[in-house]
């Protein structure tokens, strides 16, 4: 209910309500963004874009489920576009060069804890599609059916992306333990 009221107040132009929504969900969004993009500056830009889109769609926006779920799905959609654009840019620049994590500007001042860095590093070994399904399932608490619907894929595809991703993570995390 609190979220509904906050959305309602946002629709009426309340800066306070928007600020409260941001404070409530920024960490979740930054975690998702880091896990999907593995780049601090891109994560910050992503959260910026999510809130901008949210406000731009406010007039026709209707909260039917959880606001957290909505914002995280929105972040995943933006991250997919960012990832596509990044892949496109790196292919155009030099097809022989592998895609490497971006370097962060020193002015960016988000402090990520060790666990988030570890999560982001582990996720970087997976394909983007696998990361997306795993994060939406664990962090947004979405079912495979819902994830499949929002990504426009079958539920079986969502499940197999999850399974392959988890298998890969088993190897990565075991390696880390051995080290």
């Amino acid at each position, binding site marked *: 209910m609190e979220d*509904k009221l906050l959305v309602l107040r946002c629709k009426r*132009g309340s*800066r306070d309500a928007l600020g409260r929504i941001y404070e409530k969900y920024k960490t979740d969004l930054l975690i998702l963004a880091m896990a999907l993009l593995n780049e601090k500056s891109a994560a910050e830009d992503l959260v910026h874009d999510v809130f901008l889109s949210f406000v731009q769609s406010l007039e026709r926006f209707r909260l039917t489920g959880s606001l957290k779920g909505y914002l995280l799905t929105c972040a995943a959609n933006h991250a997919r576009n960012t990832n596509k654009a990044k892949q496109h840019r790196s292919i155009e620049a030099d097809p022989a060069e592998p895609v490497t994590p971006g370097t962060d500007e020193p002015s960016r001042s988000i402090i990520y804890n060790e*666990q988030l860095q570890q*999560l982001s590093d582990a996720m970087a070994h997976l394909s983007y599609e696998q990361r997306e399904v795993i994060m939406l399932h664990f962090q947004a608490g979405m079912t495979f059916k819902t994830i499949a619907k929002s990504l426009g894929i079958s539920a079986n595809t969502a499940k197999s992306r999850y399974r392959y991703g*988890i298998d890969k993570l088993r190897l990565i995390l075991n390696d880390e333990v051995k080290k």
Partner: protein
Amino acid sequence: MKPADKIKELINKSDARTTSETDKRILGGALEHLEKLKQKKSAAKQPNLWRIIMKTGITKLAAAAAIAIIVLGGITLWPDSSPDNGKWWLGPPAAWGQEILAQLDTIKGVTCHEQTVLVMSDGSEHTSSTWDILYVSSDSYRRDIYDGDFLREIQWYVPDGDGTLQHSIRYDLKSYFTHSGEGSFGNYEPIERMRFYVRLLDEADRLLGETVIEGCNCVGFEISAGKYGDNPENWVDCIWFDTETKLPVRMEKHGRPVTDQPDKTFITIQDQFNYNPDLPADTFTPETPEGFIHAHPDEIKAAMEKEQKE
């Protein structure tokens, strides 16, 4: 530990801290856009709700069809006694009305938004800057009254022995007022009003057709308030149902006169219904902020006026 559990643990323990500078940078674009939205809204004249409804082609068509059926056939408002097209509202209301009443019986609580629109003598309309959020449970009621963005007042009606305790706080006057009495909040109870309308649907004057409200496909009915009590015929009530869930999504009362201003009327709209909401435990617990004085708002206003004169 399984890799799935390890990932879950990493997510749960992950944290990201931002500085206020970063927050400003991230939220800057959104706040700027919000400001533009606010300006756009205040610049635009509040459109007539009725016109919005009647603007849609499908609604006009439905209204025309309903009129044609009544004029040409001289028959009931309900043209199809056994609709196979999914349009349940075209069937006899006695059947689907019971279904809605049964659904309403399962509702333990509801919240909704309420706002009034003042209709001037020339037909122009002005939406009130105050609006309310109502919280209703089986035995308690709360009304949060906003003036624009500012929460001006909260009123609680909660059980107190055999009667009702009424407690209100005014943030604008920094005051509170409490009294116990035999009163109830029955008149404000939206679910009871819904039941009342559903039972009256057999006598509805107009089928308003289908339109989209709050993203849901809805069907509306118009009932003259003359059908109940001693009300004049030109007082009109409308109720809109979600065609999927069959639950009401909007109720309107039109044509009521403004006290001491007989040339003006007002429309009361209740919408944004949230059925069986998950409310915080203290929603219906009256509270008084520290430092608020105990006085009736009228007393405070009178004292302020007197002070100004002196």
